[in-house]
């Protein structure tokens, strides 16, 4: 039961947030807080927190160069190397990091073990990679699409991205492919966490909460677009007011919009304190972002401290007689 407790608590937290947002929608002074004060506060917490975390990681030195090598290293000239999986220089590292960040290279390696016929069998298991990638890319597209609320006139490439995203023109207003992909990816990640016993076993409150929060944001977004249309002009006005630092609490935008906002601001404030910081952390991972050229180029440890060693003199002093008896040369007779 303990295992379901984290899930239950996460669902409760989301419900409380929802109720809170609905309460806010009904109370004018609270909508003022949500639309005029909190946006700046949440954004400030997000930005400052993000920077703080990166600086904190960055300020810890990298004493040793410890890349995990996943391909043939650079050695003799006639041996074919794998410059990306085992980078020997700057461009290799860039390539490796790009593959990792944009295509989740390591996750693509994933296998699943089962004991079949008395031996472990390593089956292909690309689902996590596929849905993970789907989720992250569609999230990026959706965030970028939202820039249309914050920029006037809308720059052409954002408009083009939105048009491409809605290419199939299903329904009115057009259903965005990225919305479908995001929801599919999220559902997979969430269900996997709840259903697979091992994953449920390792899951913490934060794991469920992060997913549910984003699911909440996407659901309210979809509701506003397709079922309870929000007054887009009012939303745009509000967003532009934020950008120009002259926010005015809006009138008559649907309650769903307030729930949406409430979730988004929670996510922003929660982000730097949570595991979601993997978004920044991945750039700093020393097993991935260093070249495997240790023997070619010395890596310097800024805190390299002297240690107590056993010198040759001490060694010979202890064993001199035995060394001489064995006919081994000695420094001091």
């Amino acid at each position, binding site marked *: 039961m303990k295992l379901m407790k984290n899930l239950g608590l996460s669902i409760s937290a989301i419900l409380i947030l929802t109720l809170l947002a609905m309460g806010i929608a009904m109370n004018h002074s609270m909508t003022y807080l949500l639309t005029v004060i909190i946006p700046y506060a949440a954004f400030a917490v997000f930005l400052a927190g993000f920077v703080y975390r990166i600086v904190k990681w960055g300020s810890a030195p990298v004493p040793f160069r410890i*890349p995990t*090598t996943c391909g043939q290293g650079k050695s003799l000239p006639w*041996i074919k190397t794998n410059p990306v999986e085992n980078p020997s220089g700057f461009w290799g590292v860039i390539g490796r990091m790009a593959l990792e960040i944009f295509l989740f290279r390591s996750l693509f*390696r994933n296998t699943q073990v089962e004991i079949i016929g008395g031996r*472990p069998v390593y089956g292909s298991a690309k689902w996590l990679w596929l849905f993970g990638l789907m989720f992250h890319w569609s999230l990026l597209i959706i965030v970028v699409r939202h820039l249309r609320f914050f920029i006037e006139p809308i720059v052409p490439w954002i408009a083009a991205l939105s048009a491409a995203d809605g290419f199939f023109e299903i329904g009115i207003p057009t259903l965005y492919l990225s919305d479908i992909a995001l929801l599919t990816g999220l559902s997979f990640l969430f269900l996997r966490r709840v259903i697979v016993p091992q*994953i449920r076993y*390792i899951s913490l409150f934060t794991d469920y909460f992060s997913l549910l929060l984003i699911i909440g944001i996407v659901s309210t977004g979809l509701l506003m677009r397709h079922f309870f249309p929000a007054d887009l002009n009012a939303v745009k006005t509000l967003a532009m007011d934020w950008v120009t630092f002259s926010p005015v609490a809006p009138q008559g935008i649907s309650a769903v919009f307030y729930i949406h906002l409430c979730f988004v601001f929670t996510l922003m404030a929660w982000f730097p304190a949570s595991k979601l910081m993997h978004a920044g952390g991945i750039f700093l991972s020393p097993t991935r972002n260093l070249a495997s050229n*240790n023997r070619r180029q010395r890596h310097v440890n800024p805190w390299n401290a002297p240690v107590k060693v056993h010198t040759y003199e001490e060694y010979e002093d*202890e064993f001199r007689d035995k060394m001489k008896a064995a006919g081994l*040369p000695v420094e001091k007779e």
Partner: protein
Amino acid sequence: MSFDKIPKPDQLIQIQYAPPKTGWMETPVEFRPGTWSYSGTAKSLTALDLPNPRSWQPSDDDWKLPENWQAIILSGMKERLGKYRSFRLFMDVCVRCGACADKCHFYIGSGDPKNMPVLRAELLRSVYRRYFTKSGKLFGRLAGARDLTMDVLKEWFYYFYQCTECRRCSAFCPFGIDQAEITMMGRELLNLVGCNINWVTEPAANCFRTGNHLGIQPGGIKDILDFFADDIEERTGVRVDVPINKKGADILFVTPSGDYFADPGTYTCMGYMMLFHEIGLNYTFSTYASEGGNFGLFSSHEMIKRLNAKIYAEAKRLGVKWILGGECGHMWRVLNQYMDTMNGPADFLEEPVSPITGTRFENAKSTKMVHIVEFTADLIRNNKLKLDPSRNDAQRVTFHDSCNPARAMGLFEEPRYIINHVCNHFYEMAEDTIREKTLCCGGGAGLGNDENIEMRMRGGMPRAMAVKQVREKHGVNRLACICAIDRATLPPLMDYWVPGVTVSGVHELLANALVMKGEKERTTDLRGDPIGG
């Protein structure tokens, strides 16, 4: 090696992957015989000036810790969070996606969820959150945080000495989180209050004093190497030199002491000596730096440096040009990723150039230390060796990539190149079990001791089963490797899971095939077994 006290293979393979009903924070560790290693003795700890030397065992209720042990560990943790970006980052960025879970050989072989790398790391992360993050301080359990209690410490001991630092999980992690790095930190912290295992501390203490893990004194080393020379003469009719502590040698040769000490490593050592004789290499062994391996890697970064310092110091004293290193896994993790940083720069040495082929080893130009399989592959490539692979025809060979040369160097092709030139029958194991995805022998990182036998057989099971597959398919009877720990731990693993497969270093196979000047007709291989089977 006796397997009497552990379940039979067909029972051991019945692995239950369903996690227990109780949450992991509520499931205390049970020190079951066969699954843990004896404590470090007071004598070894004293020899190394390590804290809290005493007589105790992990199965005892009272671990005889200093009164303020929590404070010691927490301040040690704080210090390391400030000194290692890896540690700080790996404490924070895990999303618990679980991709690493079934990549660990100990998890595959035991089904114990705390052997999933993610959970092994959470054992430490939960304490990190409790004392070093705001959310952990405020929300406790809800934020995945817990107090550092005696139960937690026991859990650390059990599971950080149930990780061989093989880095397989790290290859699969989307953020490159390296459990080896976390285990190393966990072990450093345990060491601060005197909780270590004897199979690590005793070799380290030996190495500090005598120059090698096995505690062999200078005369002993000379006797052993002379004995190898006798054996070589008996098999080949060629008398090889045994240069030891020789000033004026071009090259210092450093190999793990396991190669001097026990079969089948000894045959690999004979292989090196025959090769060096045949090409007329002006080299020397050293008794002071008679250990390539470094059990410091399994206790603390400081200990790595203390033990490793001998190699450069000896190279300087003997006035060699550069250093050549034998076949060993964790030894090369240290030589490749730590030595130059810790004890360099080796500006008193020359950039390594093969005196036989003239090849410049550009990849080792700063460290000045070349891996023997690079050196030998270059010799073969330049036709400097006369080889008769048919002498290994009795062997149907497969190759086990040792964890560290694989995932800390990327040394994949060189050993295969040699094997392909010295054997006629070479078969690769399944793709998911070799190269960067290679599986551990189950006894690395100091866990290859007798009392830990059940866990070794469990952890080595995935490797053994991959061997079993090629044995059934191709009749493989020889498992080649480039690691001294492998040569010690794989033979019992094979006896248990895949009887009939023997283990050898690559240079043993090379020496069998090596046609030496002035040799007599060879009727046996180095082991005295008839050639051709």
